[in-house]
């Protein structure tokens, strides 16, 4: 009995371990800066994991998830700006609803063309949204963005907001993980491997692709909406193509074939950015070069390569590495 309880409580999975580590952050440190970095890792982690459901699992490389990330953020930012901070949570919900509808409509369009054209069309639509936000100065604040987005009531407390983010992020990641290992997730993996065969087996490839596109976009919007509260501000860069690009880089850094790879990638990426960005403004040059060699030499990413090593040196013997 006792053994059963401890086995349940002591996290053996990376998931439980992650929750524990992040839950401890406000206990260990009271530096607002470190809390902010931890929140960034959480939010970007969710964004990267949701992105990777599309690429790593289903094989659809979207270069436009910034569109939904920005949609979530601007939904929260604009509603709080124009209607007051009590609207924070309804705005978050509204952003999710809009992402749901928009990803359905755009998904119908972009899924019709496959491969790199899917990638480029998702990029094109995200850039369209960026341009509209950039030029519609009267409504969106254009390049200035919007500052001073304060969550309502008790969420104003930094630590409470951190736990709010933690809860939402891990609920979402847990949901996504359940999805990834469900029959639906298996169909998605098969779509990546052999869409033709899935069609012969009587499954609708397009319909499943549309579903995962909508799901991924939904969680991207959630990440964006939470980020508006973490930084108390929104800006057009959230919709820029580099935001989508960072989600891709994080995923590859961590490993796209592993469910948690992108989350680790996000953590490493943000910690690196934090440290290198303080030293030099040529951060993109450095991360670009690092990723270039990563792509060529370690395409499996940090988590993928680590699991590969574990299998090779036979610690557990069972290698669920791919």
């Amino acid at each position, binding site marked *: 009995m006792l053994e059963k309880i401890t086995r349940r409580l002591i996290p053996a999975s990376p998931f439980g371990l992650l929750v524990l580590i992040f839950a401890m952050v406000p206990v260990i440190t009271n530096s607002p800066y470190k809390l902010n970095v931890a929140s960034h890792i959480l939010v970007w982690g969710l964004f990267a994991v949701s992105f990777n459901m599309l690429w790593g699992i289903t094989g659809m490389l979207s270069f436009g998830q910034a569109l939904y990330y920005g949609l979530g953020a601007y939904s929260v930012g604009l509603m709080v700006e124009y209607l007051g901070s009590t609207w924070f949570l309804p705005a978050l919900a509204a952003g999710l609803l809009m992402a749901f509808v928009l990803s359905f409509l755009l998904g119908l369009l972009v899924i019709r*063309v496959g491969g*790199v*054209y899917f990638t480029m069309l998702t990029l094109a*639509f995200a850039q*369209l949204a960026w*341009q509209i936000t950039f*030029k519609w100065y009267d409504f969106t604040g254009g390049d200035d963005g919007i500052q001073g987005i304060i969550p309502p009531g008790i969420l104003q407390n930094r630590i409470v907001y951190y736990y709010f983010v933690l809860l939402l992020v891990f609920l979402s990641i847990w949901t996504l993980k359940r999805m990834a290992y469900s029959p639906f997730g298996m169909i998605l993996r098969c779509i990546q491997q052999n869409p033709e065969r899935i069609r012969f087996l009587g499954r609708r490839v397009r319909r499943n692709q549309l579903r995962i596109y909508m799901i991924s976009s939904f969680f991207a919007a959630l990440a964006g909406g939470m980020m508006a509260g973490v930084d108390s501000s929104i800006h057009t860069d959230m919709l820029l193509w580099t935001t989508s690009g960072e989600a891709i*880089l994080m995923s590859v850094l961590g490993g796209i074939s592993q469910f948690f790879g992108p989350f680790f990638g996000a953590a490493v990426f943000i910690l690196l950015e934090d440290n290198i960005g303080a030293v030099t403004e*040529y951060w993109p040059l450095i991360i670009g070069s690092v990723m270039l060699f990563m792509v060529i030499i370690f*395409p499996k990413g940090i988590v993928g390569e680590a699991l590969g090593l574990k299998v090779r040196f036979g610690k557990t013997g069972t290698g669920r590495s791919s």
Partner: protein
Amino acid sequence: MDTSFFFTQLISGLTIATLLFLVASGLTLIFGVGNVFNFAHGSFYMLGAYFGYQFSAVWGSNFFLTLVMTGICAGLIGMVVEFLFLRRIYGRANEGGFQILLTYCLILIIDDLVKLIWGAEYKSLARPAGFDGAVQLGDIFIPAYNLLIIGVGLMAVILAWLILSRTRAGRVARASAVDREIVSVLGVNVPMTMTLVFGIATALGGMAGTLAAPMRTVTPGAGIEVIIDSLIVVVIGGMGNFWGAWLGAILIGEVVAFGVAFVPKWATLFSFLILVIVLVFKPEGLFSARRTR
């Protein structure tokens, strides 16, 4: 609408279309021959603009010599990039994704290198002597430089097309697109062909950048706008369709030119509008016979 205004916009649209097509044709070329998608193609356009600035404005070289030099430099850099990096991921699972990722890293690197070398502020390039005025046709004045772009662009594209369709090297390139293995068994150095094709494509992109530099500002980050525009062109025209891309470029060029005249603030949105309409009604592209599934 009076005729002189109409013709001015028409020529302006053709100018945009030529520049777009120069970039888009390079993109289609490497995609058609090597099945490589070069996301960094726009960065070669941007490099071309900076080379143009360096050769012409800083070193005072003749504009046409500059154009040739830019083509050679951009082509050489393209070949080095293909040889050092892209070549290593051919044939890998999920290759398309890794190509985009690798070339995305190149965009980051090239953008930052350009900032390191030339600084982040805008640069500008004067129009070459003899082409800074306007040509009078009846009562219509057309900027001479626009005509130059249209002329040079047409020449470059026709030359590229002739090489591809009439020479042995072109035949080898097209054959490699169909079946690499057989071509290599026949004793052709297929990887070398691919490197050369990559060089020709990036040379076209670089020359487009130099040609565009006197009309637009030279700035880091110009690459991404160009790559999206030329992608819209390729998708509208029908994927891998050389002449479809040409018609797509003219369509987008004219729509943007007239859009700028009437709603300057939102003109850039029109090309997306066309893209959406095409995708809804004819996702395989306007001029493609082949249906995409």
